[in-house]
């Protein structure tokens, strides 16, 4: 059915999955505040959160399969949103799955931490839906405020607190740029609605408007910060290292995915015609991110920092899909996000399993000889590393993610073949650190006196097995995922579709 967004009730319906999640989160918030902190309550609320997320996932899938559409308005009801939501919800479920056992081990008995994940996720879902800069801002802030707290969740850890502070200060700083960008765009076009912005740029010939250009630049800075592209990435390694490991995984996957989703929608729906202006900056951002991130990744000795740089680099790869500016780019983008999320959770599950209470055993050297004591963990980690590297079969769907992004780049009308070449070349550099992990695990002897990692908890194992097995199966038969993401793209409302062919610009007919 088509929601008429001007009608509040219908708007509510269009936001139903988000509202379900928010409602569930509030109930759980009350539950967790309702008594003393305890391990069992933490666990119960965690399981409850997973339940809420599953219900939300059900709603999302229902909406996705029921073919819901909407009229033009502040939110979008399209497959792009639902697909992104599915990725976010899977990431959130995995996060809580890891968190329950991680928190128990680290004696973080705050049941609220799971609820905050739910709130952050609801913010992200708002972001994926947003078709108005105001909603974008709102979504970013709902998400960020929750994540600021999540990073500092481990109150006993100095690192955790420091990470939270850095993320908060820099995050707020970047929000300032984002907001200023929104203001200038509003000033140039007189609206905050994405589709309307696109239309007015066209109608009023604003492509050369200085205020608009500066606004776009500032908006790009804001998004760039959230998705951690160089040079706006400086917070990422520190915060990733400081945050509790499951939250790091959450940030590396869901936060990034949500910010990218909004970024992508804003860019394709509003600024398709401005590509002449942004293609070069984004080209350079992607290039610098890939080069710098990969090189600095080589110098890392801590697994979480390593994965942080890996995350930065992957932002660069995703930026290539954004730069492609085509529908194929959108499909590739979601496909890549999905693959990347699986690999991220696989590897962070291993990090959780290998690390010891009190942020110990996070050095790469702590993985020496892992294969000889925990072959399963080592094989899973190797698969994830190869997935992040983009290696076929052994790295599962990671290869096809990269393949799809390269497809988008090669077929882009913006001559992105050099960027594609740069992508593959810099991914060679990344082999230097991904393979180092494999090498350490498989080819080095277990040091004398090194203790074996504790047995895996059930949830962690579940997350690990789910991510790695899904990843590997999709790595041989990516067809279903490809079909699904292919149909997921920002779709203008039907009412304006006829006269807004330019909005998602340029649509290359040849692309699937």
């Amino acid at each position, binding site marked *: 059915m088509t929601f008429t967004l001007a009608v509040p009730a219908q708007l509510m319906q269009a936001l139903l999955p988000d509202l379900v999640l928010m409602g569930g989160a509030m109930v759980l918030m009350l539950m967790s505040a309702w008594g003393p902190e305890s391990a069992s309550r933490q666990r119960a609320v965690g399981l409850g959160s997973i339940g809420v997320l599953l219900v939300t996932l059900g709603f999302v899938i229902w909406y996705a399969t029921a073919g819901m559409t909407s009229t033009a308005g502040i939110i979008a009801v399209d497959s792009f949103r639902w697909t992104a939501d599915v990725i976010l919800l899977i990431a959130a479920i995995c996060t809580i799955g890891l968190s329950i056992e991680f928190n128990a081990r680290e004696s973080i008995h705050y049941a609220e931490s799971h609820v905050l994940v739910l709130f952050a996720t609801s913010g992200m879902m708002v972001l994926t839906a947003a078709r108005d800069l105001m909603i974008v801002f709102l979504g970013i802030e709902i998400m960020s405020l929750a994540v600021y707290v999540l990073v500092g969740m481990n109150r006993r850890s100095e690192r955790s607190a420091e990470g939270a502070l850095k993320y908060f200060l*820099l995050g707020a*700083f970047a929000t300032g740029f984002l907001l200023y960008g929104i203001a200038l765009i509003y000033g140039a076009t007189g609206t905050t609605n994405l589709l309307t912005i696109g239309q007015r740029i066209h109608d009023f010939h604003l492509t050369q408007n200085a205020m608009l*250009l500066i606004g776009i630049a500032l908006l790009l800075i804001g998004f*760039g*910060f959230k998705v951690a592209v160089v040079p706006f990435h400086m917070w990422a390694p520190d915060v990733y290292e400081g945050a509790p490991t499951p939250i790091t995984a959450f940030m590396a996957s869901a936060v990034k995915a949500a910010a990218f989703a909004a970024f992508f929608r804003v860019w394709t729906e509003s600024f398709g015609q401005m590509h002449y202006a942004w293609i070069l900056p984004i080209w350079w951002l992607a290039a610098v991110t890939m080069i710098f991130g990969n*090189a600095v990744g*080589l*110098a890392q000795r801590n697994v979480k920092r390593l994965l942080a740089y890996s995350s930065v680099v992957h932002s660069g790869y995703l930026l290539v899909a954004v730069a492609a500016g085509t529908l194929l780019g959108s499909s590739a983008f979601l496909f890549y996000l999905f693959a990347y999320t699986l690999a991220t959770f696989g590897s962070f599950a291993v990090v959780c399993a290998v690390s010891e209470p009190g942020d110990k055993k996070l050095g790469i050297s702590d993985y020496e000889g892992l294969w000889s004591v925990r072959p399963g963990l080592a094989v899973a980690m190797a698969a994830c590393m190869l997935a992040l590297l983009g290696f076929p079969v052994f790295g599962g769907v990671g290869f096809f993610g990269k393949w799809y992004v390269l497809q988008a780049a090669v077929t882009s009308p913006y001559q992105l073949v050099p960027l594609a070449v740069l992508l593959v070349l810099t991914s060679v550099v990344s082999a230097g650190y991904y393979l180092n992990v494999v090498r350490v695990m498989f080819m080095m002897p277990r040091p004398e006196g090194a203790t074996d990692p504790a047995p895996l908890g059930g949830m962690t194992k579940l997350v690990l097995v789910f991510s790695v097995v899904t990843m590997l199966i999709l790595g041989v038969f990516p067809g279903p995922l490809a079909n699904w993401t292919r149909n997921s793209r920002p779709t203008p409302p039907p009412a304006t579709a006829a006269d807004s062919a330019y909005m998602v610009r340029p649509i290359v007919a040849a692309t699937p």
Partner: protein
Amino acid sequence: MLLSSMQTIATATTGHPLADTAAKFVWLLPALPLLGFVVNGLLSLTAAANIGPADPSAVGHGHDDHSQESTHGAHGAHDDHHVVRHRHAALVSLVGPGVLAASFVLAAAIFMAMRGVEMHVPFISTLFSWMPVGDLHIDAALQLDPLSMVMVLIITGVGTLIHIFSVGYMQDDPGYPRYFAYLNLFVFFMLLLVLGANYPLMFVGWEGVGLCSYLLIGFWFSEQANADAGKKAFIVNRIGDFGFLVAMFLLFSNLGALDFMGIAGSADKLQPGGPLVTTICLFFFLGCAGKSAQLPLYIWLPDAMAGPTPVSALIHAATMVTAGVYLIARSSLLFSMAPVASLTVALVGGVTALFAATIGLKQWDIKKVLAYSTVSQLGYMFVGVGVGAYAAGVFHLMTHAFFKALLFLGSGSVIYAMHAAYHATHSHDDAQDMRNMGGLKQYLPITWVLMWIATLAIAGIPVFSGFFSKDEILSSVFARAHGSPLADAVWLGIPGSALLYFVYALGLAAALLTAIYMTRMMLYTFHGPNRTGEMERNHLKEAPWTMTGPLVVLGVLSAIGGFLNLPEFFTTLIPALPGETLAKWLEPVVGSATARLAGGEGHLPASTEQLLVGVAITIAVAGIVIAVTRLKPAALVKKSESPESVGLEKMLEHKYYVDEAYEKAIVTPTIVVSRAVLWKGIDSGIIDGLMVNGSAMFARAFGWVGSQLQSGQVGTYAWVLVIGAVALLGAFVRAMQ
């Protein structure tokens, strides 16, 4: 069964007069020695094998008691001091020479068949298609014609004798079956070389004999010098083989054929005297220079004496080293079209003949004297084929096979006796050094007589075989020096006729020296007082009949071999004798080429010829006289007591320091450059160090710098963010203009 199936494969040239004769079994000629190789090889391995344990890594490396014990026997068996006859020695003694004898009988049968027919067209027996690729068709085909027949008879005949000799000479060697395996394999390849109907198949034999030569020179591989000599022989030969290969490539890319018939058919595409045919011939000659030890590639042959003496006789005197001569005779058609190349062959041959003879003057090792003598005599053969006297070259090849095999086997007999004597007294003196011999005639009378026959033959004393062949060559040179296409050709600005006179002079000088050094060898070995030692003297005795028997046969051949091709002047003296038999026999193969190079006249006037013969005889006699009168065998002292020689003598003794020069000029620089520049410099340094590891280092260094930027300071992060923001704004503002 096998025979019949092979027979069906072999598609003989139908309609050829030889088709229904023994010639259809031509494939058996090489197959028999190959069979001998297989049998002897397997016997060698089964007896020597020391099958290891199922898990070799479980056995400690060398510290295991069992392995020490079990290898003791094998180890001891290889020690020269313990004579342990191989347990299959009797079988090997039967198979080794037996297959050769059978081959020889077959060859004789084919020869008899061939005598009765006109051989205008060679008899070609195609066994199977070897390399059929596109327009390239190389068959495994054997070619029988007068030339290959002569070679086959020499190889199987002399080969059989040497095999029989080897039975006595090598019987007590622990590697006896291996020896015969190699020797049989050699004969197989040698027969392939001469029977091959195309250049590639000939090349198979060509390289195969080199391979066997390598294996046999290094037969006693536990001495580094022997292994070195084998390796040197093979590598130097490979330089020649490179020439052979290139010549083949040139032939194929220009004529589109590689078989002798095909080339003969399309040779008219080549312009006579043109650069192409000259280049082809010169490359072929490079191959000959390697295989037949001509300047500058002769250096391997003296070292090759490290092998057992019968090997030297068979491979490094009678057969393999003459393959170059055979190649030129086989390619006479091409060489006759390339006078410049032919002149080169003659000149190199002449210079080599003299050069090697000078070195031969001052060698003390009895085999080294013979080795340089071989190089020198090969030079003569090249002079012969170089001036287009192909029959003369092949004739000298044949007589040389007789007398040089005899000389080597004789020296083998001497060494055998010396060695037995030293062995009996546990002495470690050099059994091959002539300074340790002397006066052996009373101990080895048969050997002494036979070796004098051979010496007179090689020196060119009339009636003995060498006289006729050498004289034929020299008179041919003289004859071609005037009025022939060769004389009219210009070689690097020098008129061909001048060059040929020079070659003739070289030949005469070499003949003189040959007589001198051969007489010297005989004097020092067999005459004068004995220097072997008091104790040892009692153990010196003649070898068993298996060794002396072949010597006698070769002695007869050396003495009368010249009658196979008596020159005209001789037949005019004694008309009852058939003249120029060999030349007429070879006429179908080399006749047209000979005629082309001989020019119009062909023969010298009788008076000139008689003068030349006189000069040759005078020189030979003079050489012997000089040697006998000047040399004092009585004055010699044992090797261990001899003083260092000085001056020219020292230079000759050190063979003009050619080996040393090659070592310094080629071997060492190659290794040093390869190691220091190519490996350490380019490979490890530039490619690996700078490019590969360098780029990795660069990425790491860049990453390290980047991680230093990650200072942990929020202020820094904010600064970076703002700088990035300004850059981004700048980019957008730029886009606006």
